[in-house]
């Protein structure tokens, strides 16, 4: 993984940059000692690390604006950082950058149940958004696995999803407005508590732009009333293909489950060993959850279970109590941890058309043998968002590279069958060099031109998303003389 060489001219002016930042931020919000900047050297893609030149922790929109204005004037690249949970390296610094962390921006600014919105500062964690409205039985729907830690800022940057997006959509479908600071320090308001854009849908392009178009400091989010209840059913099949057909039949039947989760044999075995959830010994396992009142759940589950029966499941288990529901979810929720017990792993995030599921799983199995690396699959089957977990040994020379090559082959396969490189984690640096497998040069250029408009000097998170070769001329250092 290549990152651009740090600009010596910027590094030589570190003292001056720090000095200027200290004029707009409190002393404890400017981190520049080498021992301390190390805390920001990586995100959740820990294989790659590089301490930034400086890290700043502003507390409000004005401070963010001041920081960006100074960095803009000084020609210093800025890497925005939410909670640092990116699996794609979205918050990986370069040695000549300023990390702009939003962790201190964590207030709730407004809750409005009549209009079903909450306005928060962007450093607030995903789960604590729900926490702020729970007492009125409301919740914020997007629920990435890292929701305890991840920040709304990062969710917006990556357009994060979660297990329940089949019904509730992803971040972009639940985001109504943002306060955003442009690279030159200009503060803009996009959207608000109302729906739809007055002109071009700028909010739509900001969401998912991986911190390359601006720094979001406040967000207006859609909140929903909680369902009366939810209940899962677990089904085991002795063939991936049959499980895939069952998913398609459930969807075709007109039932819209809130989640359809899929685990394959390697993953089932690992989680059984780790969590002892009592999962059946089978090739493929589905957890299907529906919502509503007890009677509504009964009605939907009876349709779903009839469909499951028609596919001869080796096991069909309907939850009868909250305890049984928890047991069904226990293995799924500990799947990543269970795989991590066996070895280091790399988690992929490609999406495929649901109809290609059996073929893709078979090919991944074959490739696993070719590469000599084990892989388990656990994913959101309803929307085709796969999460193959490739096991490798970080201490074994060459294993990480082998794992990355295997991962790249799986993602290329996802694209070949009509899917994409990343469904919810983002491109970051991890998938940056695979972008040409998804887009031709013209498709890519159309995207680069958008960044040219928002950030003409390419100072915001410049080394991410696009292959370095295509962004090089745009990133040419423009350090102030």
């Amino acid at each position: 993984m290549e990152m651009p060489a740090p600009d010596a001219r910027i590094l030589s002016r570190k003292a001056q940059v720090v000095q200027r930042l200290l004029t707009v931020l409190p002393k404890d919000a400017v981190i520049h000692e080498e021992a301390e900047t190390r805390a920001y050297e990586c995100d959740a893609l820990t294989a790659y690390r590089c301490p930034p030149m400086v890290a700043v922790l502003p507390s409000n929109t004005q401070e963010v604006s001041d920081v960006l204005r100074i960095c803009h004037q000084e020609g210093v690249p800025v890497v925005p950082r939410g909670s640092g949970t990116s699996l794609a390296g979205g918050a990986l610094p370069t040695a000549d950058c300023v990390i702009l962390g939003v962790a201190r921006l964590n207030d709730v600014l407004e809750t409005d149940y009549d209009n079903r919105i909450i306005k928060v500062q962007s450093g607030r964690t995903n789960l604590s958004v729900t926490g702020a409205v729970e007492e009125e039985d409301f919740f914020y729907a997007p629920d990435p696995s890292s929701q305890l830690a991840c920040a709304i800022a990062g969710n917006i940057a990556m357009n994060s999803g979660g297990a329940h997006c089949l019904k509730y959509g992803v971040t972009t479908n639940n985001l109504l407005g943002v306060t955003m600071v442009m690279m030159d320090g200009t503060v803009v308001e996009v959207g608000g508590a109302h729906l739809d854009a007055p002109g071009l849908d700028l909010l739509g392009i900001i969401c998912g732009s991986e911190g390359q178009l601006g720094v979001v400091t406040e967000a207006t989010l859609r909140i929903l009333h909680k369902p009366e209840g939810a209940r899962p059913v677990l089904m085991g099949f002795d063939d991936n293909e049959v499980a895939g057909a069952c998913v398609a039949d459930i969807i075709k039947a007109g039932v819209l489950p809130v989640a359809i989760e899929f685990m394959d044999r390697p993953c089932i075995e690992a989680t059984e060993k780790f969590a002892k959830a009592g999962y059946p010994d089978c090739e493929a396992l589905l957890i299907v959850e529906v919502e509503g009142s007890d009677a509504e759940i009964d009605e939907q589950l009876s349709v779903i279970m009839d469909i499951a029966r028609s596919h001869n499941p080796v096991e069909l288990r309907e939850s009868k109590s909250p305890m049984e529901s928890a047991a069904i979810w226990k293995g799924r929720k500990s799947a990543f941890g269970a795989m991590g017990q066996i070895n280091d792993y790399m988690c992929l995030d490609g999406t495929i058309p649901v109809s290609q599921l059996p073929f893709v799983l078979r090919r991944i199995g074959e490739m696993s043998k070719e590469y000599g690396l084990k892989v388990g699959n656990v994913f959101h089957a309803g929307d085709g968002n796969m999460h193959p977990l490739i096991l490798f040994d970080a201490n074994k020379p060459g294993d990480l590279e082998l794992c990355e090559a295997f991962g790249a082959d799986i993602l290329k396969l996802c694209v070949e069958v009509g899917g994409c490189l990343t469904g919810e984690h983002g491109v970051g640096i991890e998938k940056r060099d695979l972008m040409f497998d998804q887009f031709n040069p013209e498709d890519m250029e159309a995207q680069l031109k958008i960044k040219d408009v928002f950030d003409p000097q390419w100072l915001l998170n410049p080394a991410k998303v696009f292959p370095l070769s295509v962004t090089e001329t745009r990133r040419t250092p423009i350090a102030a003389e």
Partner: protein
Amino acid sequence: MMTLQPRSESDLSEAVASAYAAKTPLEIVGGGTRRTLGGPVQAADTLSTAGLSGITLYEPGALTIVAQAGTPLAEVEAALKAENQRLPFEPMDHRALLGTEGEPTIGGVVAANVSGPRRFQVGACRDSLIGVRYVDGQGTAIKNGGRVMKNVTGYDIVKLMAGSYGTLGVLSEVSFKVLPDTAHSSVLLFEGLSDVDAVACMCAAMATPYEVSGAAHLPVGMDGAPVTMLRLEGFEKSVAYRAGELAKALAHFGTPKVESDPDKTAAGWRYIRDVEAFAGQPGDVWRVSVKPTDGPKVAAAVGAQGVVYDWSGGLVWLLVGEGTDIRPALAGIAGHATLIRASASTRAAIPAFHPEAAPLAKVTAGLRAQFDPAGILNPGRMG
């Protein structure tokens, strides 16, 4: 005056590339039923997408449909209906309101980001749109997104294209996430509520777990009296249960009548969706988007001849005297107002789309210059 009608995306590329080389502005037309939305287009030549027609892929088990931009909307809806599925966002038919003729196309729906009453529950057209192919203002064919419903690979140009009224590119193909059609629908009808009480009633309904998929209020209903409509959809038993629970929860707003006749409920929501109340009525039509509780404030501030509330009060349709600019009256209420129906001279005098704050207007202008450097795509339509 010339009409270009390309038969393939490569023809379309060539046509736009020639126009770019000659700096010839083009009016982009699908079915022509929404041609008067936005400002008057300053172009002598027309580019029609009617030749780009047909569903290219439909996988009911994956909830995905892909169609060429000129495909009639009716064809897409019929294909979905045959598999008990639908476009979730319930696109409005503008023909009666605008007095236009023709067949709406799926590309036109996307270009104008057309949605209906269900928008406040399941999102707008842009929320169901998962992929686009388009030709930019230099004739280059571009793809973004694809046919899978979760995709964060690169920037989401898909969203930007929805509602860009052909000013960023000419759509050649669009992909959607679709949803199961619902077996059953019931509507709770509350009579005689004031605008403020009606919005309170709708907001209270949305603050329940009963999944209300339509919330509209007519200050003057079909029989002349105010009526507030709340829609529930799903399996029959579930709808009946939720109708009962919702009526209990909203008892302080009165005892609602429950209408479950499929034809009557469909007609009622079509009336709201297509703003039939203003069809054929003299006057200009505005569409105002605000937070729901500000809806009645909008109506009061404007003092309109006719008002229709949708989206729990967040979408306010107003019928006003010809040539009235309602925006000054709405100063201080957050949101935006779009002029939907007016004479060409009014549309030339009053911007159809709400003017943006200066820094955003600069971004918008910058994006348009990047996508369409010669300014040949629908010039004038979005200003």
